[in-house]
């Protein structure tokens, strides 16, 4: 395992080293210490490496990740794994707002709570939150799955497109065009597999499913008040 101390190494140097790894690299296990809330740690990774970060990270950790596995043994600032393409990102603590924003692929696991706008504009990724999510989560969520093992704040799934939302606890309110939907066997199957991959113990049958009513997909004057 290669250890990088961010008290001794600039973020620029760390990211450049990670970006320059050849596809067949043997340097696959990286251990980052003293992140101390610094921003843009491990962004733009593109390879089957594992990056373990001991401590708290700032904005955009693992942003636009491809293939890599990133584990944060701490809390994460805004936009963790934003626009992730593939791979796996795990936050052992809590995450701030916009976790997994516009993420297209891969799996983001937040073991604690996450703030507002979790999964905003998500475009195909899977996000599993062990705790609760804040307001406006899954705003304009297009594709993918958001699993919330705790509660969801107000306006969940506002203006949602085709993403699936699963919430075990309470939902303060649903956003425009977001409705509760039947939890059918195929959804239970998706949920079971996601919880399993995330390593989070929860009974899938305790969840409710939410998604788009598809009433705002094309403008209708009678729905103007919903916009």
């Amino acid at each position, binding site marked *: 395992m290669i250890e990088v101390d961010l008290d001794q190494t600039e973020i*620029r140097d760390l990211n450049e080293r990670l970006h320059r790894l050849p596809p067949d690299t043997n340097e696959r296990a990286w251990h980052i210490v003293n992140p101390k809330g610094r921003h843009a740690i491990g962004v733009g990774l*593109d390879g089957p490496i594992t990056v373990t970060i001991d401590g708290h990270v700032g*904005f955009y950790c693992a942003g636009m990740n491809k293939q890599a596995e990133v584990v944060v043994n701490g809390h994460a600032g805004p936009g963790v794994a934003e626009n992730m*393409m593939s791979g796996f990102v795990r936050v052992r603590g809590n995450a701030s707002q916009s976790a997994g*924003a*516009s993420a297209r692929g891969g799996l983001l696991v937040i073991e604690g709570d996450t703030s507002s706008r979790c999964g905003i504009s998500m475009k195909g990724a899977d996000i599993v939150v062990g705790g609760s999510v804040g307001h406006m989560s899954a705003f*304009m969520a*297009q594709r993918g799955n958001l699993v919330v093992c705790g509660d969801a704040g107000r306006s969940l799934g506002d203006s949602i497109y085709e993403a699936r939302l699963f919430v075990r606890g309470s939902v303060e309110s649903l956003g425009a065009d977001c409705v509760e939907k039947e939890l059918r066997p195929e959804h239970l199957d998706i949920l079971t597999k996601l919880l399993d991959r995330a390593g989070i113990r929860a009974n899938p049958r305790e969840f409710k499913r939410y998604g788009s009513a598809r009433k705002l*997909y094309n403008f209708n004057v009678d729905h103007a008040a919903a916009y």
Partner: protein
Amino acid sequence: MTVDPRLLRTSHSFPPQVIQEIHRAADQGVYEIRGFGAKRKLPTFDDLVLLGASISRYPLEGYRERCDTNVVLGTRFAKKPIELKIPITIAGMSFGALGAHAKEAIGRAATAMGTSSTTGDGGMTQEERLSSKTLVYQVLPSRYGLNPDDLRRADAIEVVVGQGAKPGGGGMLLGQKITERVAGMRDLPVGIDQRSACRHPDWTGPDDLTIKIQELREITDWEKPIYVKVGATRVTYDVALAVKAGADVIVVDGMQGGTAATQDVFIEHAGIPTLPAVRLAVESLKELDMHRKVQLIVSGGIRSGADVAKALALGADAVAIGVATLIALGCNRPVYVEDYHKIGTEPGYCHHCHTGRCPVGVTTQDPELEQRLPPEQGARMLKNYLTTMTLELQTLARACGKSHVLNLEPEDLAALTVEAAAMAQVPLAGTNWIPGKNGY
């Protein structure tokens, strides 16, 4: 009974077009959505004139003495700044709003002229990457089609905060233009009205923008110039904040800037014209001692080499053209007139980009209509237009005695109206009066 036409008095408050719009609103219950840019009368660069050389300064000989036009963008932080042969770039327009033929034609023409073209909402197509030697990749609030591979394939990155046609508003692409390919690029179902958010999903405010720019630089290893584009509203503050956030280049888009589909009320009533926006942006850069260090691109209603010359004289480093690009490709050309009629308009008046039924094949996804714009032909027309603009620009710059178009300066300008004098802060022609200066 015949009506005496002298008795027909038009209301100033309710002329026929206003009456028609109220009737339309009463019938449909929704605002008008359309393409193109502002149609109302606004102060423009036409309200300025250039002061050619005379005895106090001498002109350069046209065709014989050099008047260079090259410009370098992104010199502040980027490892690989962009060098363009002309200071006229192609503004961001999405695949989706435009068809693939139009995008390819734009890329070819821009490459032939040594300038850049720009992607738009919806991501980068292979056609435009292959056809554009220098391609600016937009990062928009919707994040449609955004991915790190295209970030790295781009030559520059433009973080879009706002657009002149709709500052503070998001995008809109109506369902009739959401084909399978467009929907696939945007991760949306086919045929739905596609809305783009007005704010970025993972940052708000200048402090966050600083960190967002840092992330984009990290992902691209600090190679690419980072532009920040704003719609012209509170220009002084926006430019200063973009500089503070770390932009290499700032794009200020005035309210005459075009759109593929936006509410008419937005197009006509939000933002400020390009003319005062340039001056405010330059003042803001100078106040920070960043003029020419952070480059300024101005867009919104640029139509001719004269407009370019005046924008540069006010202190811009380059301009971007959008609507004029489409017109060069054939927009509003009087051909296929019956197809203009089918969508309820005439050549010269069309702003129906939002319908996807563009009679000349520019703003459409319909394969049959697109055949009307062969990319080679479109590229030729756009190249001709860009060449003409450049020659016009050089003509005026030489007449002002400038061996480089970036040497044009405010002292080369006079205003024809009090409003333009106040907005551009150049003297009213025939006077030394600049409104607001020296206690007047």
